């Protein structure tokens, strides 16, 4: 057996992980750390553009619809639903990890299934929101041409009165920047959710086949769990930056 650490200093004398963690889990943490920097850079560039602009679209007017709601004016309603779905799927994931600690195969299977369901509902919601915004003319690089877009058209994305003292060029630039950042950042996040769902399905198949039971531990559930919680964590910030502030 490797020597057991008796004092804090002896952790660093070799023969064991000073972090008391497996290589795979440390690397997952470090990957998530770099991913946090990538998302951070995207959100910072969005914030920098916003702080540098005279005017900025107002989330309460951009995101005011929900599926089957017609023209109902309902700011924050649909995104609250999406946020709760992701939080609950994070909870079911941590319950799957917990079941894994106790070698409870049935529990891991059940909670992983619910996590996948939550992820799929979130992705479907995001798809609907993208399609809806696209129908309103928003996409990467939309609202560029001052000859075809009027201020009246852009006004639907702004708080009434915000565009009054702003030139058409400034309004166009802000709208284009806003939607470029929105689709890029929520798209990058959505790809993370999608790959998280794929990872969860792979882990679920292995769990059902008894791979982890034979291995003697469910550490893979912990590692994909870390990834899934990170995806939820990023959404917490996206929610604030795009929908609240």
């Amino acid at each position: 057996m490797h020597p057991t650490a008796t004092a804090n200093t002896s952790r660093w004398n070799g023969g064991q992980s000073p972090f008391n963690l497996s290589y795979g889990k440390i690397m997952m943490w470090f990957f998530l750390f770099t991913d946090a920097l990538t998302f951070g850079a995207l959100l910072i560039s969005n914030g920098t553009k916003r702080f540098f602009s005279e005017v900025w679209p107002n989330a309460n007017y951009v995101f005011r619809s929900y599926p089957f709601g017609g023209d109902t004016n309902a700011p924050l309603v649909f995104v609250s639903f999406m946020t709760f779905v992701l939080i609950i799927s994070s909870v079911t994931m941590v319950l799957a990890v917990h079941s894994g600690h106790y070698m409870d195969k049935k529990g891991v299977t059940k909670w992983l299934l619910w996590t996948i369901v939550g992820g799929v509902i979130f992705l479907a919601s995001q798809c609907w929101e993208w399609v809806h915004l696209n129908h309103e003319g928003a996409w990467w690089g939309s609202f560029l041409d001052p000859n075809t877009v009027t201020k009246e058209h852009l006004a639907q994305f702004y708080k009434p009165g915000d565009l009054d003292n702003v030139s058409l060029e400034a309004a166009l630039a802000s709208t284009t920047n806003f939607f470029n950042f929105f689709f890029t950042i929520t798209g990058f996040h959505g790809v993370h959710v999608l790959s998280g769902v794929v990872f969860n399905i792979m882990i679920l198949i292995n769990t059902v086949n008894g791979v982890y039971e034979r291995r003697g531990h469910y550490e893979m559930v912990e590692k994909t769990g870390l990834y899934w919680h990170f995806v939820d964590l990023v959404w917490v910030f996206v929610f604030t930056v795009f929908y609240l502030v």
Partner: protein
Amino acid sequence: MGHHNHDTHHDELFYYEGDQSKLYSGILNHHAHEGVESAGSKAKIRKIWIITLYLSLITLIELAGGFYEYYNEGTNRVIMISFFFIFTLLKAYLIVKVFMHLGDEVRAFINTVIIPLLIFVWFIIAFLADADHSLHMNTSFWQQMKDAATGIIK
């Protein structure tokens, strides 16, 4: 490991080259001898649901702030941004500490992850302050040009 014939060195080599998580068990496997129905397990599940309640309540508070801003004219921008970010960071803290179990790791590892991210916070503040300042410079420059053109400044 006295109950089988492998020598210690061989075992360690096997674990290093094979499945390392057995060598570094961490918080894993400490409970495998208990059942998921044990009192220790139930206390942990209870804690998970309490954190869920906190996260939901914080989200509701944030939404209340969002609706307050929507239905009231002339809310203070700095106060609202601070309000949203304090609760966002609180949510991030709970998710990372409890759901990602970072709170259960050794201090050295917590520091390894958290300290560089705290430096990153400075990066955010620096960029936003710079953008805000640039906007101010930009608008005041063009305002001066406009004023000069209309003869307000001699």
